[in-house]
């Protein structure tokens, strides 16, 4: 093997690679350098000075304004909408499926797709200003069922969380095992809204789920947990006499928070909670809800077991939640419905509610 050939090959390859890398770096610093940009938020309420060249979503997050996002900036969830009044450039092809015609008239954009290249004027909903990032300590972790864990987290001293019962937080997992990066997913808060220095979440193990596996295998009591929130449109409206609440699996979380909220605030609403599970071992918080039933006659608990076995001695409703819903809810008069569960369950229940005369304005849901 000719030594000079080897030298030539390696030399030229290295030179070309190095040359290209240098060219790309120079191009990046020249072309992608948009200098310092000023973001005017909500007509001067906040003026942010940021370094241009990144997405609006990430730059706002670096300034501690957390716009909700479920897909991590891939333009597949449509949650990160912000009104860009000036400086946003034309609407991108990737944003088009998520911005309706009315929203376009309001200058709505997907903040994960808009690149900050100069000064901008933005309108961000007030709620989002209340969103904070918390690094809490995990103080309790309990197995509620074979696949659902309850996590209780304590906020750092002096910090509190202001949330409406039913809202959710973004929960961050750390790198573990084969997973090299941080990931985040949304979980509804199951603790009482009155308890402002603790947060409780119900997390169900999803096969191959990055964050749920982190919680079920790598997380330990005493660990630090990062969360941001509160987010979400799922909270009590209450322009009615009765609340029909429907949940399955870990969807119970926001409903629990809502129930306690009504009771603690002394609101007059009657509540009927239909909780659906497939087998006996999927049920949890049974004693707690039965106790609430006893203490507060305005609340009725209707657990439904889809596949009861004879040895379960199940005397409650047998079948899917839809069965109980169909039989026990007579009309939509004076009622609002709150649902949280899997898309299949939600679609089936919403159809029944529509049949019974429920308006879309009286139905609130959190699909996961």
């Amino acid at each position, binding site marked *: 093997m000719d030594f000079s050939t080897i030298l030539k090959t390696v030399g030229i390859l290295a030179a070309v690679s190095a040359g290209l890398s240098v060219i790309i770096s120079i*191009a990046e610093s020249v072309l*992608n350098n948009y200098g310092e940009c000023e973001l005017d938020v909500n007509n001067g309420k906040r003026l942010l000075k940021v370094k241009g060249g990144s997405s609006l979503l990430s730059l706002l997050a670096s300034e501690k304004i957390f716009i909700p996002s479920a897909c991590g900036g891939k333009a597949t969830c449509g949650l990160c909408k912000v009104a860009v009044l000036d400086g946003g450039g034309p*609407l991108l092809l990737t944003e088009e499926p998520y911005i309706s015609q009315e929203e376009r008239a309001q200058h709505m954009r997907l903040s994960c797709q808009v690149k900050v290249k100069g000064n901008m004027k933005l309108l961000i909903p007030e709620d989002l200003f209340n969103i904070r990032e918390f690094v809490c300590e995990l103080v309790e972790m309990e197995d509620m069922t074979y696949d659902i864990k309850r996590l209780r987290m304590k906020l750092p001293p002096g910090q509190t969380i202001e949330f409406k019962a039913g809202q959710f937080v973004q929960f961050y997992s750390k790198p573990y095992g084969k997973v090299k990066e941080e990931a985040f997913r949304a979980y509804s808060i199951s603790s009482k809204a009155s308890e402002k220095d603790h947060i409780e979440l119900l997390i169900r193990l999803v096969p191959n789920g990055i964050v749920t596996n982190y919680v079920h295998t790598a997380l330990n009591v005493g660990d630090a947990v990062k969360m941001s929130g509160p987010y979400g449109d799922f909270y009590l409206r209450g322009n009615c006499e009765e609340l029909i609440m429907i949940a399955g699996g870990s969807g119970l979380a926001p409903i629990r928070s809502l129930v306690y909220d009504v009771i603690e605030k002394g609101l007059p609403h009657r509540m009927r909670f239909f909780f659906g599970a497939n087998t006996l071992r999927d049920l949890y918080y049974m004693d707690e809800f039965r106790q609430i039933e006893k203490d507060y006659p305005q609340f009725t608990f209707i657990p439904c077991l889809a596949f009861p076995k004879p040895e379960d001695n199940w005397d409650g409703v047998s079948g899917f939640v839809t069965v109980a819903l169909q039989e026990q809810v007579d009309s939509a008069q004076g009622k609002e419905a709150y649902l949280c569960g899997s898309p299949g369950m939600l679609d089936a229940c919403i159809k029944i509610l529509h049949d019974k005369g429920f308006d879309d304005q009286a139905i609130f849901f959190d699909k996961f």
Partner: protein
Amino acid sequence: MAPNISPLIIFIASIFTSNMILNNFLGMCSYLSVSTEYKTATGLGMAVTLVLVLTTAINWLVYTFIIVPPELYYLQYIIFIMVIAALVQILEMGMDRYMPDLHAKLGIFLPLITVNCAILGVTLFMVIRHYNFIQSVLFSLGSGLGWWLAINMLAAIREKLASAKLPPGVKGPALSFIITGIMAMAFIGFSGIFTIQ
């Protein structure tokens, strides 16, 4: 060394008689997946043409001045592909900065194009046929336009067929191939003009 063919003839031939898709089967993956809508097909066609001309021109320079002198022909694949990847990245940044409207339309296609076999293919054809600089530029321009033409035709036909009733299993790639075959047959009618391969 360069063949004695007028660059203009190369240009026209590369659109009609040596069409990248219909004769050389290059760039099929994105051709099949992006041809469902006419608007996006046009966007991709434009992006492919732009990238083709730039990369072929630069690869010609790289070949002539970096590969040929030290006779490192066996390294050409690696070097070409690195140049293509780097170029696409810089193009995307430049477009975003100076032509944001264009970037809004074409931007998402650019990373897809890096692995499009048509780009590397045109460069390799240029090398095999020993084209000079002008011939290479017109060859790549024509190839890009030919590719654009083919994907636009397929998108137009597929949009029309979107509501047609079809036998099971044929919708999707199978149908696209059959349509493309018919288009290829039609283009054979042009082969009387002139051929370059």
